[in-house]
C-alpha cells in the first residue's frame, strides 16, 4: 500500500514506558508483581486512568476499542480514544476479528501508546457473535495469525499483548498460550474464568498457576487477572501463581488506590477523579455519576446519600451536592487529594 500520508513512527520505548520491561523487572526493582489497571468497557477513560496512576499503578489500559469502527469512522475515534502527555505507560485494547483491521488499527494508535492488547476475553454476546473477544480463544489459528502479522511487521518497536480467558479444559489454554508465544506475543494476561463463568464465582487461581508451570516459554511473562480487590490480594496472587504482573479491574473501579495499600477508596481519590474529569472534559454525566457511586459506596457512605447522588441530574448539580455535603477540595486548596476519611460537613451524619 503506497501512502501519501506520513505515518508517525511508533512511540519510543524506554525503561519508563516499555510495558514489557516494566512487567519483567518489577519483582526485582519493587519486590512485587507489576500492577496493572485493566480495561473496563466504557469506564477506563482518561480521567479515571490518570486517577489510577496516582496510586502505584504501573500500566493502564484503555477500554476495548473496536478496530473496525476506529479505522473507518472519525466520530468513533473521537469518542473512543483521548489521551494526554501523562497518559503513559498506556496499552490500547482492541476488539478485532481480522488481520487487515488490526494492522490498520496498529498503524493509527502506535504513535500514541506504549502497547496494544488484543481482547480475547470479552464475554459480551454481541462481540462473540462477531468473532471478537473471548470467541478468539476458540479460534487460535486466527488469533495467532493476527499476532504474527503485527510482530512480523513491527518487531519489538510495537508491544503486543493478548488478554485471554481460560478454556473449560485448561490444557487447551496451555496449547493456545504456547502457540501465541511462538507467534511472538510479548506477554499474556490470563483472566482465570471461562467465557461463561460469572464474575460472582471465584477466579480459578489454580488454573493460572498451572499455566505458568506448563507453558513452555518461560521468558514470556504472564499477568494474572481476576478477584484482585486489595494489595494483599495482589501479593497473594503473585506469590501463589508466580506470574509477573497482577491486573485489577472491578477492584479498581471501586477503589482506584488499592495497589497503594488502601483498604477502601480514600476521599482524595474522589477529589482527584472529579478534578481530572473537569480538566479533561467530555466524560458523559452518567459515567461520572456511576464512577462516583462505586467509589463512594466503597468508602462506606450510607445509602440515603448514595440515593441522593443517583438522583442528581447533571454535573453542575453534582458539584453543588459535593460542596453542600462534604468539604470538597479543589487543586490548590490545602490538603487537596490527601484526605482518607469522608470529610462530612458538620451537619451531616457520621458513618
Amino acid at each position, binding site marked *: 500500500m503506497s501512502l501519501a500520508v506520513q505515518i508517525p513512527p511508533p512511540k519510543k520505548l524506554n525503561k519508563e514506558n516499555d510495558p514489557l520491561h516494566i512487567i519483567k523487572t518489577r519483582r526485582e526493582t519493587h519486590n512485587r508483581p507489576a500492577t496493572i489497571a485493566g480495561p473496563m468497557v466504557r469506564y477506563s477513560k482518561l480521567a479515571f486512568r490518570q486517577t489510577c496512576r496516582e496510586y502505584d499503578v504501573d500500566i493502564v489500559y484503555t477500554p476495548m476499542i473496536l478496530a473496525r469502527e476506529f479505522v473507518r469512522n*472519525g466520530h468513533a475515534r473521537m469518542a473512543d480514544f483521548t489521551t494526554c502527555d501523562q497518559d503513559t505507560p498506556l496499552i490500547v485494547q482492541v476488539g478485532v476479528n481480522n488481520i487487515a483491521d488490526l494492522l490498520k488499527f496498529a498503524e493509527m494508535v502506535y504513535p500514541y501508546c506504549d502497547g496494544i492488547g488484543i481482547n480475547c476475553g470479552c464475554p459480551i454476546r454481541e462481540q*462473540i*457473535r462477531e468473532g471478537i473477544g473471548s470467541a478468539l480463544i476458540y479460534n487460535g489459528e486466527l488469533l495467532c495469525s493476527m499476532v504474527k502479522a503485527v510482530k512480523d511487521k513491527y518487531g519489538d518497536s510495537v508491544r503486543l499483548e493478548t488478554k485471554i480467558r481460560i478454556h473449560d479444559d485448561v*490444557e487447551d489454554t496451555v496449547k493456545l498460550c504456547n502457540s501465541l508465544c511462538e507467534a511472538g506475543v510479548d506477554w499474556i494476561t490470563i483472566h482465570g474464568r471461562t467465557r*461463561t*463463568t460469572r464474575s460472582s*464465582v471465584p477466579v480459578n487461581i489454580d488454573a493460572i498457576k498451572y499455566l505458568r508451570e506448563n507453558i513452555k516459554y518461560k521468558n514470556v511473562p504472564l499477568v494474572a487477572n481476576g478477584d484482585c480487590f486489595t494489595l494483599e490480594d495482589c501479593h497473594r496472587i503473585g506469590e501463589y501463581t508466580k506470574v509477573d504482573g497482577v491486573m485489577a479491574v472491578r477492584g479498581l473501579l471501586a477503589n482506584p488506590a488499592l495497589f497503594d495499600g488502601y483498604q477502601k477508596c480514600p476521599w482524595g481519590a474522589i477529589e482527584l477523579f472529579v478534578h481530572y474529569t473537569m480538566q479533561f472534559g467530555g466524560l458523559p454525566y452518567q459515567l461520572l455519576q456511576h464512577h462516583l457511586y462505586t467509589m463512594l459506596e466503597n468508602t462506606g457512605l450510607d445509602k440515603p446519600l448514595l440515593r441522593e447522588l443517583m438522583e442528581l*441530574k447533571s454535573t453542575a448539580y453534582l458539584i453543588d451536592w459535593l460542596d453542600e455535603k462534604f468539604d470538597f477540595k479543589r487543586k490548590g486548596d490545602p490538603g487537596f487529594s490527601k484526605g482518607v476519611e469522608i470529610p462530612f460537613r458538620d451537619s451531616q451524619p457520621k458513618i
Partner: protein
Amino acid sequence: MMSELSSEFSSLAVASIKANSVIVNDKTINLKDEHADSHANERRSQALQRPVTIDGNTGEVLVRKTTGKTRIRRGQSTEEYQEQLEQYFLQQKGPTRTEENALQKKEFDQLIADESFDYSLKQIRQKMVSYAQLYYYERDYSNCLKVSELLLQKFEPINKKNKLLKELDELKHMIEKSKARCT
C-alpha cells in the same frame, strides 16, 4: 492426551490424573471449570462463531449469526483507508489530546466563534459545556456565567421536541447560581 499430560508433569511429582483434574504434590488442580455446565443455556445463546475473511486486504468478513443467517461486514478499500488516514493524521493530528489546564477561555472564545460547529452533535455540545462546568467547578463564576449564557443562545434554537432539556436545565442552573455568587 493423558500420556502427554503425564510426561508434562513428570518433574512435578504427579500423584494421579483424573478426567477433570490433576493432582500435583498432593494438591488437586481443577482443569475443568466446574461451573461451566451450569451455564448450558447461556452457552447456547452465545454459540461460538468463526468469522470467515473474504478479502484479507480490505478486511471484508463474513459472520454467521446464531440463527444461521450470515452477514457480510464490508471491507475498507485502500482509498477509503487513505481518506481516514488523512483525516486522522493531517487534519486532526492524531487522537484528541486534552492536557491538564488545557481548557482555556481563549480556546472557548475561538470555538464559539466558529460558525461551522454543528451543535446538533452531542459530542460537540458536551465538549463546549465542559468549559462551563470547569469554571463552575473551579468557582470561577464570572467566566462560568459568560460561557453558559453564550452556550444557552446556541443550544436553545436547536432544542427540538425538548431533546436538550437536561442540557438547557444545567446551563440555566449554572447561570442562576453564578449570578448569585458573582454579586
